[in-house]
């Protein structure tokens, strides 16, 4: 049916949709081109207009959520958790906007024309919604991605979800609302404020986590730099002592040669070559960040009397953040150190390979470990901890970096060894 009311309704809905899209664009990351975003939303809008014309409230709400979830899951690439939270918050703001408008309009006295009241309420609700979207965008400018735990997710999600339920119950309980309109207005304002504060809180938590991660990494980096300095110094000292000894050595060699003590001479050379081989640093790819962290961590590992082999085959310059590479290698090698610290571990062996091939960085860390083991009722040994738990927080941090590069992380257990493989495309 085409009449003025319907046209205004559709225009209002479009306006609301644009505000919503703007909000989603600001908080989520697109996975497709702008054209697709517009097309999908337009399609959802038409479908929504067509389906929502019936008067069943519950059905309308379900259609609203199904369409919103579908569109968002198709168009944006953030984690499902973040998407769910965003949708629920938008829904609460939208709902409260409408209820506010409704309450205000219902309490306006003097206008008897039902249609104008409806239109007015309608427009007020859209304006309130728009204002809230603008305020939220203003405070939530950054797009951040962090892996929140399930507990955090549920507690954050429950705020808008419970508010929706609460408002629903309150709306059905007409006598209470009719009793005093100001009371209702007061009630909805509180819910609005709670939700708004929650959004700000949610943003703050993200910021804090980011900051914590950063600080931890800077702290690590500092240690590596000091270590690098010490290594360089050690090498320098060694060099000067070598130069000093050189003359003496040549003298003794020429004496040996003169005396035709060939066997002694050969032994001497043999020992010298062995010494040089032993003082080799494990990683000398020329890639400063990788060399520093690998040499440092592996020196720690070797001090634990472990047999640890390293192969670093990477170019000097790679297009990857130094922070990220330090995060990955630091955490993975720390896990090796943790595993080797276990005194019950008899055979401490491991291997590290870092290879750059076909625009991909491949990192494999393999080490023996002594798992925490427990017997079951039959007396058989059972593994009590999953490999992820064994590796603790470190792996989570690595996983975050891997995700950032759209990479692949694999943790395997193979005859008393842990094998962690990272493959990131750079």
């Amino acid at each position, binding site marked *: 049916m085409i009449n003025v009311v319907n046209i205004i309704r559709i225009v209002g809905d479009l306006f609301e949709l644009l505000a919503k899209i703007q909000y989603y664009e600001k908080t989520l990351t697109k996975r497709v081109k702008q054209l697709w975003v517009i097309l999908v939303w337009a399609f959802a809008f038409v479908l929504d207009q067509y389906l929502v014309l019936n008067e069943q409230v519950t059905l309308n709400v379900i259609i609203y959520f199904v369409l919103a979830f579908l569109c968002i899951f198709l168009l944006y690439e953030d984690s499902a958790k973040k998407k769910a939270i965003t949708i629920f918050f938008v829904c609460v703001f939208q709902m409260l906007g409408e209820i506010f408008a409704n309450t205000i309009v219902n309490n306006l006295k003097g206008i008897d024309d039902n249609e104008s009241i409806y239109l007015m309420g309608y427009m007020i609700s859209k304006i309130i919604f728009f204002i809230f979207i603008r305020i939220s965008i203003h405070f939530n400018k950054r797009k951040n991605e962090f892996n929140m735990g399930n507990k955090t997710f549920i507690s954050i999600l429950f705020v808008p979800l419970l508010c929706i339920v609460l408002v629903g119950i309150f709306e059905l309980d007409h006598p209470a609302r009719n009793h005093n309109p100001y009371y209702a207005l007061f009630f909805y304002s509180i819910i609005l404020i709670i939700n708004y504060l929650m959004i700000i809180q949610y943003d703050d938590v993200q910021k804090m986590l980011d900051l914590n991660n950063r600080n931890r990494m800077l702290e690590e980096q500092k240690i590596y730099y000091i270590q690098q300095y010490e290594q360089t110094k050690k090498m320098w000292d060694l060099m000067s002592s070598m130069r000093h000894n050189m003359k003496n050595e040549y003298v003794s060699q020429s004496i040996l040669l003169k005396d035709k003590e060939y066997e002694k001479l050969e032994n001497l050379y043999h020992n010298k*070559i062995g010494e040089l081989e032993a003082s080799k640093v494990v990683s*000398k*790819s*020329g890639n400063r960040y990788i060399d520093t962290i690998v040499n440092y961590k592996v020196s720690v590992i070797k001090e634990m009397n472990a047999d640890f082999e390293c*192969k670093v*085959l*990477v*170019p*000097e*310059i790679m297009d990857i953040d130094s922070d990220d590479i330090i995060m990955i290698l630091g955490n993975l090698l720390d896990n090796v150190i943790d595993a080797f610290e276990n005194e019950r571990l008899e055979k401490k062996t491991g291997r590290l*390979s870092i*290879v750059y*091939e*076909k*625009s*991909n960085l*491949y990192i*494999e860390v393999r080490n023996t470990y002594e798992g925490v083991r427990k017997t079951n009722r039959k007396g058989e040994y059972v593994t009590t901890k999953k490999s992820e738990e064994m590796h603790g927080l470190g792996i989570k941090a690595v996983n975050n970096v891997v995700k950032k590069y*759209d990479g*692949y992380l694999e943790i395997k257990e193979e005859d008393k060894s842990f094998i962690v*493989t990272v*493959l990131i*495309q750079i």
Partner: protein
Amino acid sequence: MRIAICDDDEIIVKDLHKKLDKTIQKMNMNAGIFDFTDGYDLLYEIETAGIFDIIFLDIEIGKVNGIELADYLNHQKYVFTLIFISQHSNYYKAAFEVQPFWFLDKPFEEEKLEASLKKAIDQLNYQYETINYFYAKEYYRVLIDDIMYVQSQGRTILLYCIEDKIYRFYGKLGDIEEELKTKHRKFVRINRSVCVNIKYVAKWTYKYMEMSNGETINIGEKYRDEVREYFQNWIREKVKEYD
């Protein structure tokens, strides 16, 4: 078989020559070893008498850079296997462009030398493997090493080779894939109709591959995990080569 040793240090060359001689006798091979202490001499010999099968090359040979020399030979489309007798890691990045190759560190241990030689011969054999077929009453032989990827179009098999050459014949991709994999081991199926030679993959991503000539080929959804697995194994093999 012709083997060249090129290092500016004559003592090193003589030592390697002696040890190689011993290894060759042990392996019951028939080969001639030629010594060079100058990169230009090596180049002259190659251009007048032909390429060597295996070249032991130092990275710093007087004024000549071993990497550049190898790169030049590669560009001349010579078929050979390269072993760098050095441990210079600074040059690794540059060495990336030159394939196939690996490093053999001084002083030369006989066991490692033998392993390297075996690997080099293996490598050479791969490079000479061909795929043979009849098409339009003519007999064709195509060097497998030159095939960038194989594509099936209906009943036709297309071999896309280097220098933009395309060969065609009738067959099933499954059969060709099997043949390539047994003869060469470097091929991997990446979607329903394409099988690529990993040697010519410039960039691998989960969803597509970029070939060295700039073409991109999508990896079929069902094949992606398998291809990733293949790629990982291929890297693991590669790591083993640097023992």
